[in-house]
């Protein structure tokens, strides 16, 4: 269950870009998860609400594009 740690990294990254863009909170995030990156999308989705509680990504919708390869990216997000 290393996905919790991945979630925390995701939220850190998202909040950094949120602040940079002058936003207040994140309402949705679109990720790319490659089949060889070592991260299971379902485990990520399960860990996300717990990790996001109390952050500016709380309640954000997670959209995961599954691709082939080793990429694990935060592609874009919707912010307010």
């Amino acid at each position: 269950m290393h996905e919790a740690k991945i979630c925390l990294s995701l939220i850190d990254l998202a909040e950094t870009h949120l602040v940079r863009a002058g936003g207040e909170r994140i309402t949705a995030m679109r990720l790319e998860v490659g089949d060889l990156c070592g991260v299971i999308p379902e485990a990520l989705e399960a860990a996300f609400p717990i990790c996001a509680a109390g952050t500016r990504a709380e309640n954000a919708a997670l959209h995961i594009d599954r691709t082939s390869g080793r990429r694990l990216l935060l592609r874009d997000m919707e912010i307010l």
Partner: protein
Amino acid sequence: MCSTCGCGHPEVPSGTARHPHPEDVRRVAVERSILEENDRHAEALRKRLAERGIEAIGLLGGPGAGKTTLLEATLDHLGAEAASQAAVEGDCAGDLDARRVAARGARVVQVVTGAVCHLDAHLVGHALENLDLAGVSRLWIENVGNLVCPAPFACGETRRALLVSTAEGDDKPEKYPAMIAGADLLAITKIDLLPHVDFDPARCASAARTVKPGLPVIRLSARTGEGMDVWMKWVREGRA
């Protein structure tokens, strides 16, 4: 209900003067790796080690694949050179591996990860604060025994050796492709057990190369010494 501006938003208490409306939503492109912080740590670590002339080799594999035993045999092969080897040993509990490796003449630091299932660059970086690297030419990073979780986390190593033992089964590369994808060498260990187990080394190698074409695959037994010369060549020269 938002009655201040009349937008009808159900979650906004009345009297809230300013609140975001759906039309305020902005899309921001990020296009960054979620692991970039760990990758940054790993790159800094790699650079720091390279500046000191230290090469770092990652040892990965499931519990019981033979990582520590291979490291012990490697240190024995190196003879006097063992004193210039250092090791970071990752385990959920205890310091058994650190003691085994230290007994073979290497400098060792044990990282106890508790419930954490893998090492990462940050953990390794801090572990190295407790290791005297003067005179060290090679650092071994023995990850927590696990064929899943260590895959995405770079630890500052320049090369990764993945171990799969004959006792584990030849289907491991098919089942754990992410670990294969990140490996620079696949070592089929405990090859001396081959007559006693249903393990097809050709199937194992071919499955690994389906995931990672051209991956070097070697067969060895740390116990009998079979294949150790090929392993040592990879360790010294980077090719098997």
